[in-house]
């Protein structure tokens, strides 16, 4: 996803002179081309994320559109108050780009996992939260961001995330993308777990369960219509995300459902509220917590069994 991000940004920067790329000393072997083409719009701000955020806000106050990048925890949590005040409170056109969302840096240990970022970013007023589900959604998110007014958080996965969409995608503000129109259950995924969710839908289909599959890049604003329509048309709703159970996509969908008054079976598939002691690859950790394709399918079937 990071390669898709920098490719899209490099293309758009040729047309849109507002674009700057700021990095907290990250991006080795990926950002060099951008830096060479647009040396006066590329800034390695050093390992100083709080200052980078304030600088980005200052650039935005001057009419520019800075994209500020680092590994997800460092660009959302280390500088959270600068994001809150300098960027969101002042409603500035800063794009916060988190690399390696969720468990991308699985074996790197807890410091590099990013399991609370969606929750935190979602709570900030004015902040739009986008978690692209595949590299094509990343490209679409970068393009969308140029027409968007106000701050945005874009949560990337890793390089090598699978392509899900067959062709180019266009993001509509706050709108979900329906990938499959099934009738038994609805799986709503955000971000880099979309690939496993799609595979889970395939497994479920083999078991005779028809899945409505929705990619929901916008966690905020959330697509109420897509959620409520799925709630009316299928037997159970599941959210899937590589993020904590608390405050992310699952919470956002639960809020919509709870206030709708609709009776609906609903389950969040996410990461339990605990720190990882285990070490291993992203796939290994996904397997452990039930976010492998089989794990997701298993949770769906278990709920359907209980229901019947």
């Amino acid at each position: 996803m990071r390669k898709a991000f920098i490719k899209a940004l490099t293309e758009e920067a040729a047309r849109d002179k507002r674009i700057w790329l700021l990095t907290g000393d990250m991006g080795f072997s990926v950002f060099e081309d951008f830096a060479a083409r647009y040396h006066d719009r590329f800034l390695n701000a050093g390992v100083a994320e709080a200052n980078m955020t304030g600088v980005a806000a200052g650039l935005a106050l001057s009419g520019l559109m800075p994209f500020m990048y680092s590994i997800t925890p460092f660009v959302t949590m280390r500088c959270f108050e600068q994001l809150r005040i300098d960027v969101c409170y002042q409603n500035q056109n800063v794009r916060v780009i988190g690399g390696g969302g969720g468990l991308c840096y699985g074996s790197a240990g807890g410091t590099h996992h990013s399991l609370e970022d969606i929750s935190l970013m979602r709570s900030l007023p004015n902040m739009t939260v986008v978690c692209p589900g595949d590299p094509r959604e990343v490209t679409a998110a970068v393009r969308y961001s140029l027409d968007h007014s106000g701050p945005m958080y874009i949560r990337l996965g890793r390089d090598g995330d699978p392509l899900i969409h067959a062709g180019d995608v266009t993001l509509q503000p706050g709108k979900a993308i329906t990938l499959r129109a099934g009738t038994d259950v609805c799986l709503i995924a955000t971000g880099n777990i979309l690939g496993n969710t799609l595979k889970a839908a395939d497994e479920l289909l083999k078991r005779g369960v028809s899945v409505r599959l929705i990619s929901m890049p916008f966690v905020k604003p959330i697509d109420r219509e897509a959620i409520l329509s799925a709630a009316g048309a299928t037997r159970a709703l599941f959210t899937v995300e590589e993020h904590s159970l608390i405050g992310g996509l699952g919470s956002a969908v639960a809020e919509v459902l709870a206030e709708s008054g609709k009776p609906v079976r609903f389950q969040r598939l996410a990461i339990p509220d605990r720190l990882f002691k285990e070490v291993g690859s992203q796939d290994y950790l996904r397997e452990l917590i039930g976010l492998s394709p089989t794990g997701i399918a298993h949770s769906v079937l278990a709920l359907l069994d209980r229901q019947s």
Partner: protein
Amino acid sequence: MSGQQSALSDIARQVRRHVVRMVANARSSHVGSALSIADILTVLYFRTLKVYPDDPWREDRDRFILSKGHACTALYATLALRGFFPEKVLDTYCANGTSLPGHSTMRCVPGVEVSTGSLGHGLSLGCGLALAARRFGQKHRIFVLLSDGECDEGSTWEAALFAGHHKLDSLTAIVDFNRIQAFGDTSEVLNLEPFGDKWAAFGWETKSVDGHDLAALEAALASLPYRAGRPSLLIARTAKGKGVSFMENRLAWHYKSPNPAELEAALKELA
């Protein structure tokens, strides 16, 4: 004192009168922090800064950031006296529905550039403004007023390092060095010395001035940058609570709000 300086000191006195009244009426805090910067703000807005009260957001204006946003009463009073908005608006400070919050907020009234109140934010914003100005080839200057206590914040030093590295010579930081922070003397809480040497080591050209000597302040801000290719730092040696004898250099007046008798006594001294 020359006639001009006498006029300036009269303005500073009026700023202080507004400050004590506003804080007393609102039962709010930080009167000492605001009195401390009254002279600096007076010199900035009536001598140094290129500003346009009738066209407050004109592109070529100098930018001023009050990083110590808790001292906003002094900024509001100075802006009103400079003609950015009517002085009577000051009476609404912190009242329900007011446009004047207890920490300065972006464009809450004409002339307030950014939102501050959490310490350690202003200098980074100033760096961003200075970078953008350089990029656009603009000639305006950026001034950031910090408190000394604010230099406890790591983000202030991140910004100091950044400004020095990028040679942001359109950026001037002024530190209100009154030696008292929220819960003690700066020397006891976290010693900042050798203060000027620290900034110099980060690539800044520094000067020091009596922060209540209007002529000296004006002279210290008359020719910037202090050295081409470097950000400028002016250490303004000040007294917290300056201008009201019983508030001067007293920690309590970081928080205390004058009661009616204290307000009357303060206004008498500032008459």
